[in-house]
C-alpha cells in the first residue's frame, strides 16, 4: 500500500497531460513548426513553477514527509551524451509525436499498439546499455 500514493501522482500527471493535449502528435508537429504557443506554454509554466518548488525543497524551506531535506544531484558534465543523446531522443519524439511518459498514457487510453512502442523503447534502452562503452559521452 506504500506504493499506492505513486499511482495517484501518476494518475494526476497522465490525466493532466491528456487534457493539455501534450499526448497529441498533432500538437508536437505544431510545436516543431512554431505554430502555437500552447506546448511552449505548458513546458515554460512547468519549468517556472518547477524552479520555485525545487529551490524551496533544496533550501529546506519545504521538507520531505519524514522531515529530511531533499537532495538534488547535479548532472555530470559529459557534453557529448547530452548533445547526441538529445538529438536522437528528439528525433524519436518528433517521429511518433510521443515521449517516454506519454507512451504509458496512450496505452492506458486504449491505443494498445503502444505496447509495441514500449517494447521498441525497451529494445532501444537495452541497445544503449549494450553499446554504452563504445559510444562517445
Amino acid at each position, binding site marked *: 500500500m506504500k*506504493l499506492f500514493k505513486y499511482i495517484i*501522482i*501518476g*494518475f494526476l*500527471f*497522465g*490525466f*493532466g497531460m491528456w487534457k*493539455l*493535449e*501534450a*499526448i*497529441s502528435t*498533432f500538437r508536437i508537429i*505544431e510545436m*516543431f*513548426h512554431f505554430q*502555437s504557443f500552447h506546448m511552449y*506554454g*505548458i*513546458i515554460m509554466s*512547468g519549468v*517556472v*513553477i*518547477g524552479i520555485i518548488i*525545487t529551490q524551496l525543497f533544496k533550501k529546506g524551506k519545504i521538507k*520531505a514527509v519524514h522531515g*529530511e531535506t*531533499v537532495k538534488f544531484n*547535479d*548532472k555530470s558534465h559529459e*557534453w557529448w551524451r*547530452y548533445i547526441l*543523446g*538529445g*538529438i*536522437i*531522443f*528528439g*528525433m524519436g*519524439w*518528433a517521429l511518433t*509525436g510521443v515521449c*517516454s*511518459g506519454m*507512451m*504509458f*498514457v496512450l*496505452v*492506458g*487510453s486504449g*491505443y494498445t*499498439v503502444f505496447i509495441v*512502442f514500449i517494447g*521498441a523503447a*525497451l529494445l*532501444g*534502452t537495452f541497445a544503449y*546499455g*549494450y553499446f554504452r562503452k563504445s559510444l562517445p559521452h
Partner: protein
Amino acid sequence: MYEKVLEMQEFISQPWPWWMGGIVIGLTLYLLFKFNKDFGLSANLRTMCAADGAGKYADFFEFDWGKQGWNLMVALGAMFGGYVAANYFGGDGLAHISDAAINTLNQMSPEPYLTADNVHIVPGKDVMHGVNLPEWWNLYSWKSLFTLRGLIIIVGGGFLIGFGARYAGGCTSGHAISGIANLQLPSLVAVIGFFVGGLIMTWLILPYILQITI
C-alpha cells in the same frame, strides 16, 4: 447532487489552457519531492530491462532496480490517468491546434484531409467522441503497425526514444522539466538537442515517411 457531478465533469472536459501545465507539473514535482523522489519517466525503461535480466548482458543494468518500484507505479498511474481522461473527460475529443498547423498537416498528406472538426486528439481511431479522423491519419492502430509507414513510426520512434533517453540521461520529464528546474546546464544542452533532433525529423524526414504507402 448527480447534476452537480455532471456539471463538474463537463467543466473538466473542456480543453485545458496551457497554464494548467504549470499546475499539473508543479503538483507532480511537489508530491514526488515531498516523498523524496525525483521525476523521470524514462528511467522506468531501464528498470524494466534490468528486471528482465538485462544485467547479464551489460553492467548498465546491474543496479538496485527493486527500489524503483515507486516509479513504475507512477507510470501505471499515468496509464489510469489516460484511461479516465480519454473515456470520461475527453470533451469533444479534438486536438485544438491552430489553423496554420492544420494547413501544414494537410500539406503532408496527398489530399487536404484534415479540418478543425476531424483532428482527433491523437492520430488514431476515436471510439468515444464521434470524431471522424480521416483514415490516412490513422497511425496508432494495429493495422497501421503492419504497414511499412506504421512500422517505422511506431517501432522506429520507440527505439529512438528508448536509446536517446538513456544516452542523454533523461527525457522530457527528467531534463526539460526537473533538470532545468534544478538549473542544470547539461539539461539545457539536452533540451536543445531534443529540439534540434525534433526539427530535423519534423521538417526533413517525417514528411517523407508519411508519404510511404506500403
